[in-house]
């Protein structure tokens, strides 16, 4: 057995692969298949190709690799699949193996640097964020944009610049106390995961989350020096780093006593809920990973499960909701945010067509595959526009960035908000 085969058989799990009975029920929910109408861009097709890759029977070429990258990782296929195929696990494993085989190029070095040296290291992340903020605030950026210089040099760089979150003045973990007490009664003990991008790019959403938790009778512990959850690493072929980060987080939160660990980023929440899967072969961590995962709750899930109500005064805006893939497909959270929003906005909620289709943000997909990402964004924006809503709400930072860019691109007068910010704007409980 050559070395690659050995790796494959231990990594790509034959039982998981055989689970797919190629019934095709997942085709109609897969954004890439619906767009191309090609079986190889469908979950069923991709699983067949992964099987071939694992069997090493047939040499698969660039098209295979490209299909693995074209896949959004949105997991709509998992929601649709009655057979319970774990597509995401197989997809991540395949990407990991492919990344090991791939020749080194500049793009790969940059991604690796970004994932391993910046995201995975809190102090580096802050350092780079500060540099980025300085740039974002500078006359230099304004000049680049107003004169269209950047667009002319490289439309790709321009888009990256547009999609990068506006770095907050101060990262949220510098403001949030380690212990925050509830406003009134104390019922729940929770911890809060600040996230990496959330922490530096969406500090205000983190602060809104703390406010909402305070109003929800929670004593909130926010440990200092938290780690990135590792989701982006796993989705981009850096499985080892992802496992290391998972262990760091488990070790850190082990020091606290809590009922739930609250996350407000769909991607992080999903990934942390699956740490036990990631570390299933690690005897030392398996048990603690299971406990850790079982306590993760998305903020909307927490509010819904504990029947916490937020009243609004008068509400005039009409609202629509975009399902972040990692909430609806990753965690099966669909009714919870709708219920919360409906309670607040009374009858002004409008469902959009294909609300569960990916917006094209998909981790760093919108940077790695800009053209494809824009196709999915355009479809999403069309569906949003048709609802005529004033506000679009969603539960993931990536989607917020992407949708805000969509708003700008289409010159719309539409607000994009995180569920928790929407709640926090309402007065009283």
């Amino acid at each position, binding site marked *: 057995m050559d070395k690659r085969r050995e790796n494959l058989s231990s990594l790509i799990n034959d039982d998981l692969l055989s689970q797919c009975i*190629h019934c095709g029920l997942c085709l109609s929910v897969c954004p890439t298949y619906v767009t191309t109408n090609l079986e*190889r861009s469908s979950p*069923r097709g991709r699983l067949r190709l992964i099987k071939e890759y694992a069997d090493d029977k047939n040499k698969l070429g660039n*098209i295979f690799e490209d299909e693995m990258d074209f896949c959004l990782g949105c997991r709509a296929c998992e929601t649709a699949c009655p057979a319970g195929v774990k597509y995401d696990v197989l997809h991540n494993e395949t990407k990991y193996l492919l990344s090991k085989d791939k020749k080194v190029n500049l793009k790969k070095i940059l991604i690796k640097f970004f994932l391993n040296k910046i995201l995975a290291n809190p102090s580096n992340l802050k350092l780079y964020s500060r540099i980025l903020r300085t740039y974002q605030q500078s006359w230099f950026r304004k000049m680049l944009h107003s004169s269209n210089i950047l667009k002319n040099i490289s439309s790709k760089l321009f888009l990256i610049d547009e999609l990068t979150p506006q770095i907050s003045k101060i990262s949220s973990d510098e403001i949030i106390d380690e212990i925050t007490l509830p406003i009134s009664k104390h019922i729940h003990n929770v911890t809060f995961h600040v996230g990496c991008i959330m922490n530096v790019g969406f500090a205000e959403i983190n602060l809104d989350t703390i406010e909402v938790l305070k109003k929800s009778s929670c004593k909130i512990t926010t440990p200092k020096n938290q780690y990135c959850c590792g989701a982006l690493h796993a989705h981009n072929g850096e499985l080892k780093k992802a496992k290391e980060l998972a262990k760091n987080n488990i070790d850190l939160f082990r020091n606290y006593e809590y009922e739930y660990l609250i996350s407000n980023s769909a991607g992080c929440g999903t990934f942390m809920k699956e740490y036990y899967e990631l570390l299933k072969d690690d005897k030392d961590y398996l048990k603690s990973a299971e406990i850790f995962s079982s306590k993760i709750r998305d903020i909307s899930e927490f509010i819904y499960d504990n029947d916490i109500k937020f009243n609004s005064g008068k509400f005039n805006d009409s609202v629509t909701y975009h399902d972040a893939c990692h909430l609806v497909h990753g965690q099966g959270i669909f009714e919870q945010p709708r219920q919360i929003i409906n309670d607040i906005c009374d009858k002004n909620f409008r469902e959009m067509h294909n609300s569960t289709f990916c917006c094209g943000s998909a981790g760093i997909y919108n940077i790695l595959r800009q053209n494809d990402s824009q196709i999915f964004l355009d479809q999403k924006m069309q569906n949003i526009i048709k609802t005529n809503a004033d506000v679009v709400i969603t539960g993931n930072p990536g989607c917020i960035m992407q949708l805000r860019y969509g708003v700008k691109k289409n010159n719309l007068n539409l607000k994009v908000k995180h569920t928790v910010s929407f709640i926090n704007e309402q007065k009283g409980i």
Partner: protein
Amino acid sequence: MDKKIKSKLKEIVGQNNFFDSNEDKLTYSYDATPIFNELPEAVIFPENTLQISNIIKLANTEKFNIVPRGAGTGLSGGSIPVENSIALVMTKWNNILEIDHSNLTVTVEPGVITQNLQNEVEKLNLFYPPDPGSASVCTIGGNISNNAGGLRGLKYGVTKNYVMGVEMVLPNGEILKTGGKNVKDAAGYNLKDFIVGSEGTLGVITKATLKLIHKPKSFSTIIAFFESMKDCSKTISDIFNCNLTPAMMEYIDNTTLKCIEDYAKLGLPKAAEAVLLFEFDGREEEVKEDTNNLEMILNNNNAYSVKKAKTLLESSKLKAARRSAFSALARVKPTTILEDATVPRAEFPMLIELVNKAGKDNKVLFGIFGHAGDGNLHPTCLTDERNKNEIERAHKAFDFIFNETIKLGGTITGEHGTGLSKKEFLENVAGIPGVEMMKKIKSVIDENNILNPGKIFTTSPRCEGNLPFNNKQIKPFNG
């Protein structure tokens, strides 16, 4: 396949609609049928009737085969490629051309997805009843070619009851138009009924006009659980005996129920031995009366935990859960061989008993569900194709089931077609004269045997020329 032929094909459909990478061949080598697969030489997406006609003419001169394909959800291997073939995929050709409100018809291109069609006509208060479990994915072309049935067969019939007109490219490249919007048409042979169920062997369907009805004003969905199969069977026969005609009456056994619940998480009581899912539709008073009658019958037969869906969402969740049955069974074991045995509806409970016996005798596990209203059962053998011995036992069990089905006056396939997986049993149902007639028809219409050859029956004669003297002279048989 020769490069020259490929470049000619490219000329006909354009570079963008021609694919022949390893990846593309692999991903068009299967449909939803277990175990069978074969690589095509190329995958082609035609955009109009003329292109198809030209492709077919080329196939006749260059001697390659054509396998028409919809969404590839077929369960008898109809769209699995054969030797030296191209896959002719219709999924990009998917416009609804016209909805004619006054004549109650809809005209579509072959790649239209069944559920999209249903949704569009329902917006206008019209209704297209055929409702296969795969409706969210499968195409009208595939439905017509397999004469698809579905969940509403009892009251509304199957696809053939709704096909009014078809446009089809014949195996010599000519274009046939038959039927239309007329409710009555007695001119000559009834060709369209002959095309329905032809599984892509007689031509390529390029357009279809389908019958619509008015959308029922109200409906109610009810699910009932039984502790014993006996009670369930008695319920079914009581319903027939008191002239109730539900639009839907679906049977689910315990194994299937557990899998469905694991997937859909509706809180169904997993311990039940048997489940029936009903739907009544029509005028409001009518539906109310039927529902009351049903509830009485259920009561008399010890059904417990009878639930009526309160909202549209609840009702569609229950139906969606039933639709997931086949795929959900893969949770138990990865290879699910699903059959399609059909008997006169009064024999339905007997058929279930026979399947259970076949499972016990051959030591294989079955999940059983089906359309109790029209006698169409889907015994699904739960196995693993990597375990050769078990697969053999599964085949033995199916042999038994098929033979017994025919003894009960039934047929080997109610709605999935014969394709590859059931052709060896065709003679038992259709008889030798029947199969011979089918073969003759095929050989006259498709002289060079280029359209989906080897499906439904084997077209090469059973014995040609001198009998062989020794083993070496016998060529391996490959349809």
